């Protein structure tokens, strides 16, 4: 294995990973997923961004599980993945139906709840 960062002489701070590091990544991915959901109009891409948010949450959970030395977090990631899968299946089925109706994946097509 390559030498550790510490062995390589990196400053201690740089090679001491904290919970915060992982949480930041998780937060940034979540935020990117949120922005993507709000910004894109393609229905499938919107759902993809929600999957991204799921993933970020999973990362946070695993980091916390490691922090607390408790396996509960990781078990829950399994459930999260399960639910994400089920939801993706349903969402995609509905998207297909919607597509068949309007021949378009534009989320702005569906505005019948206006007012």
């Amino acid at each position: 294995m390559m030498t550790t960062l510490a062995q390589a002489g990196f400053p201690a701070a740089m090679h001491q990973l904290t919970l915060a590091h992982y949480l930041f990544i998780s937060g940034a991915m979540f935020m990117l997923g949120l922005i993507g959901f709000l910004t894109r109009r393609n229905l499938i891409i919107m759902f993809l961004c929600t999957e991204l948010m799921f993933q970020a949450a999973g990362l946070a959970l695993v980091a916390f599980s490691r922090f607390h030395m408790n396996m509960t977090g990781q078990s829950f990631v399994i459930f999260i993945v399960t639910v994400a899968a089920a939801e993706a299946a349903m969402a995609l089925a509905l998207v297909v139906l919607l597509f068949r109706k309007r021949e378009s994946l534009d989320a702005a097509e569906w505005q019948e709840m206006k007012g």
Partner: protein
Amino acid sequence: MDQVINPLALYGACALGAIGVLLALPRRDSKTPQILGAVIASLAGGIVLLAMGLKAGGLFGIGLSPSVYFYVFALVALGASLRVITHPRPVYAALYFVLSILATAGLFLILSAEFMAFALVIVYAGAILITYLFVIMLATQAPTEDLENALTEYDTAAREPVIATAAGFVLLAVLTTLMFRGVGELPKAPAINGQSLLAEMPRKIESALLAAGSLPSGAKVTFDSSGDAKVDFAARTVEIKLADGGTRMVSLPGDLAVTNTEMVGFNLLRDHPGSIEIAGVILLMAMLGAVVLSRKQVQLDEDAKERHAKLLAAEMAQGVETNP
């Protein structure tokens, strides 16, 4: 908890990142702002990571192995996520998503959660994303000959980018502020020494001892009343029952450890059995739902019919032209 990162740097990076993402979002006109935006966003991300790296101290002396892999995986993950949301073509976005999944799996590995990493890759990348790709290809409008490379209108332009970006980055700033300032005295969850589970896996101990050759023939690991092995963790010895009925303490092999898989398994089945059942039900419902939904024959909407007719007319006109 001390400040991990200078708040000014954090907020500054957030703002910079916001601008960068805003520029990077899909737009109809020229592509240069997007590239510029991507550069800026990565710059912002880099600043944060660097600042974190410089300021972070060894807080959890658990001994996480310092690794450059974290930074690699982190950068890949963020970059792939950015590309997911900014790429105009859906297929590319899905593929970038796969990349981000892989990066996340890498991060899991660093956290010693190898089972989670594998599960993530197999389920997410291998199943869900494939489904997404199928549906994307199913639901894309068939392009006409001269519109092959055209993007649909809804893919090109971002919608309400400013609000979305602003909201997102404010959230990020808030979340990270919380992280870095701490919330005072939060109680920690009770830590479980995962290694203590070793006692509940006598078969594993046996096979390990067998592999290491420490087990005399005919000897078995003794079971106590609840079916566990009797392990002395301090001395790392386990009691075995000899063929002639006597007991002896044998030292455990050095590399015998409870794997993450086993730990997750124990936790799942012991502490959350009900949730497993419910998860199973959810999956069943999803499957049934998918079957039911996909059977419906949906009538085309009026507008869609109109468009379809126009398209056909255009096609026929062209067909007349091209077919003499």
